[in-house]
């Protein structure tokens, strides 16, 4: 996304990321994250809870937001990213999620630009799964916003 660095300005829309939530990914995420809460991986257990079925880990869905930021900002995001989000609605297996973001502030500092974005993850019904804000410092030699 190197070209997008030059296009960054307030109102710029980050390229959206689309993801389908799959139970096998949730199961693998449970292993990688060591979070084996049955609400995520045990269908029988989850059916008896208010959720009515398994739900994805909130941190798995948040990983999609981080992935969108990495796609745009590369190592700048890994080195200096900040996230502040709220989990609004659980994501369920079969859900089609869209992660989007928009630049809302771009401030020039000595060696970098501090870029603040609104971020959103929504399901196909238009329900907000995650909403919040990200901040990333983009080195000046890589950006002309």
């Amino acid at each position, binding site marked *: 996304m190197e070209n997008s660095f030059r296009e960054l300005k307030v109102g710029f829309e980050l390229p959206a990321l689309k993801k389908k939530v799959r139970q096998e990914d949730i199961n693998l995420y449970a292993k990688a994250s060591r979070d084996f809460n049955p609400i995520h991986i045990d269908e029988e257990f989850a059916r008896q809870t208010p959720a009515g079925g398994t739900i994805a880990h909130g941190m*798995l869905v948040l990983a999609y937001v981080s992935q969108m930021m*990495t796609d745009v900002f590369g190592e700048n995001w890994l080195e200096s990213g900040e996230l502040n989000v709220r989990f609004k609605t659980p994501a369920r297996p079969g859900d089609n999620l869209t992660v989007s973001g928009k630049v809302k502030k771009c401030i020039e500092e000595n060696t970098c630009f501090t870029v603040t974005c609104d971020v959103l993850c929504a399901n196909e019904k238009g329900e907000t799964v995650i909403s919040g804000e990200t901040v990333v410092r983009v080195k000046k030699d890589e950006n002309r916003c």
Partner: protein
Amino acid sequence: MTEKSRFDFSQLSPGFEFPAESYILDESTIKDYLQATGDNSNLYRQRSLAPPLAVAALAMAALSEKITLPPGTIHVSQELVFCGMVFAGDRITCSSKVSRKVDRGGLRLMSTDITVTNQDGKTVLTGKVGFVLPDMEKISG
């Protein structure tokens, strides 16, 4: 982790520090993580980097292994600050501390600060996690 070493919500108060937990972020864990999240970025593979959310996930695991929260607890908010990159094979140590607890009038909230350092003692990630707990009095009738 035995049940004995878990802490119940009622035992916790602001300032309480959970015992730290260390993990080695090996290639295999990162590979599973990237597959689970459907992240095909070459960035991680080329430089043997760990996604920062994989680090955050382990910090959350360290916390959840030490605390007993009632069924119905909701993870409502998450703040994260990435302070440095983490590489495959790094040994990370995850610490957490209760920063806020509200338990009155049916409102039960808890915020916990998390800090992750690498094997050199450098902080690589900080954050804050927010939980809302169910009102047990209402549940029990």
